[in-house]
């Protein structure tokens, strides 16, 4: 019992370190994907709980957290598309240019949007996005290329 308490304390300390380093960045990333603060925080907090739950199994908690957060955002987007009840509402008070980008991002399919945001906001390489989205790097590059073509066409009109 004492040993179990000690392990729990150690894992909680590690999660607290991870929280200090990653929480704000993860919420910002999630927000660029789901456009809703409450949902962004929900997926990120769930992500931290998931990391804690799998504490003894994972070697790179930060990388695992990022993958978990992106996949949970993906689930939120898929659920919205299926239910058609919660259309993505644009964040308020955005500069015109950013509001325009937001609208066009919503015209991309889900994989294109995820790939573009992870590349341009997260600064991830194609190989890293491939790991997070569980798809070949060539497919990621294709999504980015197609997504950019749509963005270019729509934004430069």
């Amino acid at each position, binding site marked *: 019992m004492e*040993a179990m308490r*000690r*392990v729990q304390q*150690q894992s909680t300390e*590690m999660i607290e*370190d991870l*929280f200090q*380093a*990653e929480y704000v*960045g993860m*919420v*910002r*990333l999630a*927000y*660029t994907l789901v456009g809703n*603060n409450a949902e*962004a*925080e929900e997926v990120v*907090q769930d992500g*931290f*709980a*998931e990391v*804690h*739950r799998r*504490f*003894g*199994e994972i*070697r*790179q*908690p*930060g*990388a*695992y957290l*990022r*993958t*978990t957060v992106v*996949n949970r955002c993906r*689930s939120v987007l*898929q659920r919205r*598309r*299926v239910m058609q009840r919660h259309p993505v509402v644009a*964040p308020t008070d*955005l500069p015109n*240019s*950013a509001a325009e*980008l*937001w609208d066009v991002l919503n015209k991309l*399919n*889900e*994989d294109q949007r995820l790939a573009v945001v992870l590349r341009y*906001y*997260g*600064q*991830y*390489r194609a190989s*890293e996005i491939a*790991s*997070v989205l569980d798809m070949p790097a060539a497919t990621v590059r294709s999504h980015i290329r197609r997504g950019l073509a749509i963005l*270019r066409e729509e*934004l430069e009109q």
Partner: protein
Amino acid sequence: MNQLDRRIEADLGHIADRATPSPTAWESIQDRIAEQVDHPEPEITMLKPNPNPSRRNRTWMLGAAAATLLALGALYVTTSGGEFTPLEVTDADEPAPSATPTVTAEPPPTTTSAPPSAEVSPAALATIEEFLSSTDIDAVNAVVTKSAIADSTQSALAIDTDGWLVSRQLLGLEVQLLSCLEAGSETSARCQVSIRSSISEALGQDPRLRGVTFDFSDGLISTWPAVITGTDFDRTREIAAAAGLGDELDAACGSLSTECAEFVMANLDALAAAASASQ
């Protein structure tokens, strides 16, 4: 980077700026973790398949499958008014909707600069793993500084003897690296390790989980946790005390040595009895 790239980056930054992380987020996460502890996920028991399924079982399964197909067919005819309608085919680019999040088992390490990361570098991780798994003194010395010290003593402890490596082998001591994060700076890593030995296994003790810290200097380990190279390798010390052998163990195991390993092995029966009594 062209103008479009710059614009996308800047505008995504503006969008991200609208995120307002809650000041009570940490408390919320703690609540979620506490909930997990209070209500852990049910354990799934994997049953071995019957290597010799009987004819009766096969017949039963075939019957059940046929009944299911018949029921589904009847339902389909009822709901579609008996007319055939083509199945919808989804776009191959769009994955089938899923109610549950997909989580990759263990993503590889990333080296991106944003968002900020607290992971140790792959090089540091490899150095720690080399330190923990080496059974050769030259290999150990290759990953530590010449003035490396153990954390608890804070005194220079050059690894110039292979005594502890030999005893590690004798004791079957294994230190498994579970996870590592930077501990305040790039030159310090806080890691979670699991420590087990053939003794703890023989005594029916679980591996011991410990949080340990490694410091680095010029890419080499300058401070390592004494627990790795000391005698605090598992719960043997606690068990020895319960068996009335605490003083003798301390005398034999002042350092992790062949003498220590031999003492533990010689008293394994008494230690096992004490371990059994303490459970």
